[in-house]
């Protein structure tokens, strides 16, 4: 890969092997094979997270009452964030209720898949494998096209893409651009944004941790070995920063999904 080519340029300090910077290959963690399918670490953790999340949500909401118990109060706090500040603010008070289940599920799934990157047992974001963001994006993709076509009809949907009041000669160009936006750019950026953030963040943490261990174990002299201390601190700082990014990306994913749905639901362009 491209990064390993860079490694050759770094001077090999220390006695033995030179430092190997992380490559995308670190995300390939197969566990076992079932027929033609290889079950990876990320798939196993996705299943565990989804199972635990479902169980906890069912348990906390089972005995819902007007006077909430402690667990219900906690759940409502979590639930109200995507409901109020994403769904209601983006889609509008009239029609947002229909989309709250989808958006809350998306938010919680993306959030906990992301947070697996900072959880001490996994230390590997599930969404760092591109398949997971693609699957989540496919759901959003189908939903916002379906909602648009249901509301406006197929012809009306294409007509809706062109803002009113444009001079005639520019309409085909705008239509082409909007067509690319709706069918290619939107799903592509939605999936790649989540994937790219988690992928890059995990790589950076991996780089700092392995770099610190390399300095400590193979460093040439006490000075290079002492350099492992700031590198370790930097790794810790990056983990804290990553937790922020993981929350932010879950929010952004849900916010964009809501805004795509809102564009379909709202009457004005």
């Amino acid at each position, binding site marked *: *890969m*491209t*990064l390993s*080519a*860079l490694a*050759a*340029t770094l001077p090999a300090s220390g006695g033995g092997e030179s430092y190997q910077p992380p490559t*995308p290959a670190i995300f390939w963690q197969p566990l076992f094979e079932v027929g033609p399918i290889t079950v990876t670490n990320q798939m196993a953790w996705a299943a565990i997270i989804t199972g635990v999340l479902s169980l906890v949500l069912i348990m906390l909401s089972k005995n819902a009452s007007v006077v909430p118990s402690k667990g219900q109060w906690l759940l409502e706090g979590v639930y109200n964030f995507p409901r109020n*500040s*994403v769904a209601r*603010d*983006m889609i509008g008070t009239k029609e947002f209720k229909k989309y709250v289940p989808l958006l809350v599920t998306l938010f919680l799934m993306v959030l906990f898949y992301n947070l697996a990157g900072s959880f001490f047992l996994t230390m590997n974001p599930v969404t760092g494998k591109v398949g997971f963001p693609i699957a989540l994006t496919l759901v959003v993709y189908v939903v916002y096209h379906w909602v648009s076509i249901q509301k406006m009809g197929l012809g009306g949907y294409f007509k809706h893409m062109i803002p009113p009041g444009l001079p005639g000669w520019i309409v085909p160009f705008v239509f082409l651009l909007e067509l690319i936006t709706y069918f290619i750019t939107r799903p592509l*950026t939605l999936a*790649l*944004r989540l*994937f*790219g*953030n988690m*992928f*890059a963040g995990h790589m950076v943490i991996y780089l700092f941790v392995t770099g610190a261990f390399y300095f400590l174990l193979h460093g040439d002299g006490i000075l290079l070995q002492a350099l492992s201390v700031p590198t370790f601190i930097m790794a810790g700082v990056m983990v804290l920063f990553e937790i922020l990014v993981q929350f*932010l990306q879950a*929010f*952004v994913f849900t*916010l*964009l999904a809501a*805004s795509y749905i809102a564009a379909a639901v709202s009457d004005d362009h």
Partner: protein
Amino acid sequence: MEITGSLSLIGYGLSAIGPAIAVGLIFAAYINGVARQPEARGLLQPIAILGFALAEALAIFGLVLAFVL
């Protein structure tokens, strides 16, 4: 001096400049808006984060292309 490696990484560095400036401008405008009208914070926040996400997409394209090409 001989340098080996991939030009894709330099390409990624270049592609990150534009989004970096854009994200800075977006949050500068957001801070400006909140400073002038603190009660507009709730209204401005989703807009700012939406703009941030759209600008950031370009940097993400660069990152992905750096690995793909």
